[in-house]
């Protein structure tokens, strides 16, 4: 940890979680200063540095950003905010562009699941899981409060002020409150340049991205309590935004008037405690949440179908988990969750779906010297209820239940070296969402769940060396590599319903096999005079084949928007209060559909980002300043066909810690 953040992170002991080895298989984690230095505006931006992850980004500040983990599709990623799942029964995908990085302290991505036994059953219910942990209050010995005022401003008309206040109510109860406002015009120049096969320019045009504006505010208030053998927290979250929905740049139409309003509110709490019975531990984790989400979508463009729809979702969530030691090396746990979802809308012929989900997970973990193992069986029970409007047939809600297993193993060949060989297997599904099943005219109640099966094997090695030569004082090394094979069955796909394409239908159509490898490596060198250089790289290879129909051209083709090769490099050089940060992201060639023909080819893209930070020590308070320049080469690229991304852009970040 560099000096920049040392004082403020005074109680942060988990410098490298890898050392603690809580998990059978370590997640990819970004936290603390390492995370802050990435200067990511949203969670989606930060996730680009993980391996095995592809971000679908439609450009700009307000545009939707979703995450595809190991090519299984964005519906298969469970997202947890301070330990409690974020649900979206309506469309099953959490827009990670919506989650600001301002208050996030740690992001962890698990392929498969977290192997912590004391967790809700929901944590076992996704193919991959993302944990977002917000900042917990930490206090210096003589100061019972913290104040931080921050401002981010930059291109796209971005203005993003934020304020944080933390108070030590008692030694064991801490309060945290923070608020943030974000405004951006989302306007940026883009250029499209097409070349003929003879190398001559065919056409070359520039434009300004329109309707990518956003205005949002977020407020959070939380209480964190600490018990001798446990902890609890209560949190309230409020988010309100209005944004434009930028459209595809197509011939003759470059602008859009479509708008979206989001309002999200939730209250969540958890309580965790451990009791001792002799030398055996018995632990309880209880979690509860209520959330209310409102979304309004407006298309006022009268050349198209006028749409003004509002959706209101409610979710109630209750969970209890128990963990007990059988022996000191063997734990068993059981957890039970209940989730209630309700969706309301002003759409015509709407069926107002309600879903009751019961989840029961039984799991066990074993740790004997060089061997760690964990196994879980998850039973999912789902009952949907719909109100059928008169005259509508083919609408029957079905009950569904399924038992799904997962197993993970880790083996440490030499107890003196932190080298681990690991493997996991997981079979899980995602339920069709309310939109898939019941969206007026489009939904298909005959849909089956979409199943994924994952097989993974890999190794992880961590080494810290203390050196005694003149220049270099120490070196930390970390390598993690995984190879995997995934299957996605009964993929849920939208297809047009007959001629004239404004009607769609959802079908279980598709089988995908994914063979891939993820590699992460990092080295941190500690030099004399407080100079530190950290270098991290990630690389992903994925062969994600559409194996749906052997008679088709696309059979065996790489699925849409998944590159074979992608990776990132992050380098940070710090000296005293200065820090120089460079990052590089590379996404290799792709096709925008699984028919891998030249007409569907998408060029690789890569961005270079550079930032410089300085911490200023002033009387009684500190000031941190960062200047950031992104996409240094002003590369004109698109992640999604016809959605141009911004070229050269920059930000200025100032934070005052009082």
């Amino acid at each position, binding site marked *: 940890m560099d000096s920049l953040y040392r004082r403020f992170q005074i109680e942060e002991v988990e410098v490298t979680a890898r050392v603690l080895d809580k998990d059978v298989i370590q997640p990819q984690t970004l936290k603390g200063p390492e995370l802050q230095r990435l200067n990511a505006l949203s969670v989606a931006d930060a996730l680009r540095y993980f391996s095995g992850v592809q971000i679908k980004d439609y450009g700009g500040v307000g545009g939707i950003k979703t995450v595809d983990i190991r090519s299984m599709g964005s519906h298969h990623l469970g997202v947890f905010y301070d330990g409690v799942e974020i649900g979206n029964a309506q469309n099953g995908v959490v827009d990670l562009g919506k989650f600001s990085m301002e208050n996030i302290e740690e992001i962890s991505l698990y392929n498969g699941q977290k192997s912590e036994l004391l967790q809700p059953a929901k944590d076992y219910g996704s193919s991959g899981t993302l944990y977002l942990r917000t900042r917990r209050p930490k206090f210096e010995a003589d100061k019972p409060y913290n104040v931080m005022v921050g401002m981010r401003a930059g291109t796209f008309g971005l203005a993003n002020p934020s304020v944080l206040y933390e108070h030590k109510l008692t030694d064991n109860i801490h309060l945290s409150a923070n608020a943030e406002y974000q405004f951006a015009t989302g306007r940026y120049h883009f250029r499209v340049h097409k070349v003929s096969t003879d190398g001559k320019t065919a056409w070359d045009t520039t434009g300004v991205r329109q309707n990518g504006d956003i205005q949002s505010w977020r407020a959070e208030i939380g209480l964190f309590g600490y018990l001798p053998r446990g902890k609890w927290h209560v949190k309230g979250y409020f988010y309100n935004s209005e944004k434009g929905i930028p459209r595809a740049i197509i*011939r003759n139409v470059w602008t859009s008037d479509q708008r979206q309003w989001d309002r999200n509110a939730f209250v969540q709490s958890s309580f965790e405690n451990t009791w001792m019975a002799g030398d055996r531990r018995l632990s309880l984790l209880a979690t509860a949440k209520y959330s209310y989400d409102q979304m309004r979508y407006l298309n006022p463009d009268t050349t198209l179908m006028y749409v003004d729809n509002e959706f209101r979702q409610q979710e109630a969530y209750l969970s209890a988990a128990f963990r007990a030691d059988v022996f000191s090396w063997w734990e068993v746990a059981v957890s039970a969750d209940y989730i209630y979802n309700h969706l309301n809308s002003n759409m015509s012929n709407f069926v107002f779906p309600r879903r009751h989900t019961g989840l029961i997970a039984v799991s066990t973990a074993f740790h004997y010297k060089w061997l760690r193992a964990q196994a879980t069986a998850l039973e999912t029970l789902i009952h949907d209820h719909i109100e059928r409007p008169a005259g509508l047939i083919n609408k029957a809600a079905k009950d569904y239940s399924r038992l799904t297993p997962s197993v993970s193993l880790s083996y440490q060949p030499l107890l003196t070296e932190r080298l681990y060989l690991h493997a996991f297997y997981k079979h899980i599904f995602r339920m069709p969402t309310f939109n898939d099943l019941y969206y007026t005219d489009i939904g298909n109640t005959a849909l089956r769940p979409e199943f994924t099966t994952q097989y993974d094997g890999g190794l992880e090695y961590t080494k810290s060396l203390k050196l005694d030569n003149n220049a270099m004082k120490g070196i930390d090394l970390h390598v993690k590599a995984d190879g995997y094979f995934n299957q996605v069955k009964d993929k849920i796909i939208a297809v047009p319903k007959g001629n004239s394409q404004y009607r769609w239908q959802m079908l279980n159509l598709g089988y995908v096999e994914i063979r891939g490898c993820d590699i992460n490596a990092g080295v941190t060198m500690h030099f004399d005079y407080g100079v530190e250089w950290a270098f991290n790289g990630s690389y992903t290879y994925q062969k994600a084949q559409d194996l749906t129909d052997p008679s088709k051209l696309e059979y065996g083709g790489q699925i849409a928007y998944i590159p074979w090769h992608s990776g990132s490099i992050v380098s940070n050089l710090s000296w005293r209060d200065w820090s120089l940060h460079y990052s590089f992201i590379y996404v290799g060639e792709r096709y925008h559909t699984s028919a891998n023909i030249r007409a569907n080819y998408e*060029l690789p893209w*890569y961005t270079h980002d550079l930032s410089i930070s300085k911490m200023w020590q002033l009387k009684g308070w500190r000031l941190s300043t960062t200047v950031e320049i992104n996409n240094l080469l002003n590369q004109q690229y698109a992640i999604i066909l016809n959605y141009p991304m911004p070229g050269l852009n920059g930000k200025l970040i100032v934070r005052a810690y009082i």
Partner: protein
Amino acid sequence: MKRTNIYVLAILLFMTACRGDELLPPTETETRGDKQSGSLRGFYLLNEGNMGQNKATLDYYDFEKAIYTRNIYGAANPGMVQALGDVGNDLKVYGNRLYAVINCSNLIEVMDKRTAEHIGTIEIPNCRYLTFDGAYGYITSYAGPVQIGNKQIGYVAKFDTATLQIIDTCFVGYQPDEVEVLGNKLYVANSGGYLVPNYETKLSVIDLNTFEVADSILVAINLHRVRKDGEDMLWVTSRGDYADNPARLFRVNPLSKQITDTFELAAGDLTICGDSLYYCGMDYAAGGAMSGIINTRTCQQVSTSIVTDNTLIDTPYGIAIHPDSGYVYMTDAGTYVNPGVLYCFSRDGKQLWNVRTGDIPAHIAFIYK
């Protein structure tokens, strides 16, 4: 510092080496079938492309050379910014010109029928289908003025084929689709597709002398296609409501305004050649692909499958008949997101050849010599 230099150099190499030029979509040719001589030069096929992808493309089949060319528009007009546009919806030849309706790009692309070279455009928002009579073209549009309840009335625009200027408009029903000229009347199939579940049910009848709506004919909900036959009868399709009301095909007497015959089938596309009406489409209720032939004179179902060999067509989408040889050209849109296939069948339904097309191959227009 030496190491840093090497590292910088490696990065620079990486930057310059990996990203090439963004190339235009390719134009490709393939030989298919036997060379044919006759009154026809060839046909164009308009691929719709998926909404938002800007991938409408035009293909061409040359009868004399027996060569199929994918994306001939791209080759003929390499400098056209964003090429043909987003979602092709109709294709017609009239005079020496080829007209492609590009729905989401809000325009009609007018081309030379021999070269597919750009001549001009007619800008009409949310344009759907077109037809011609005399010196004028008629095109339907969903995007009329906004009414109470944010409903937009549809209209037919009349344009001069010489100047490509719109000279008149006539409001019809909601979301009008196909138009057909019969006598001095224009028949417009109104769908009401944006008003689910309150679909339109009528054909609008426009008097071509006054260019005003003179009458209407009640047929069924969600009308789509309207074509005349040799007996001056109209064949009209209803898409149904995808629930209780199935898709249907009707024969309508335009003089008595009566439905004379009803067929319960999903004719996504149809074409009339002589006394035969060929149709194909997807019937989701009955479970999939369908095609057939109806005698327009006797109103008997002659065939319930145009294909008589073991050719499997996933998603029959467009159909055309060679007026001389009677060959059947049927397109398969597949899963819609990937390139489709054009099949050529002999008069008796045996596959002669097939070729890969663009995405969602749909509309065929023959070119005479």
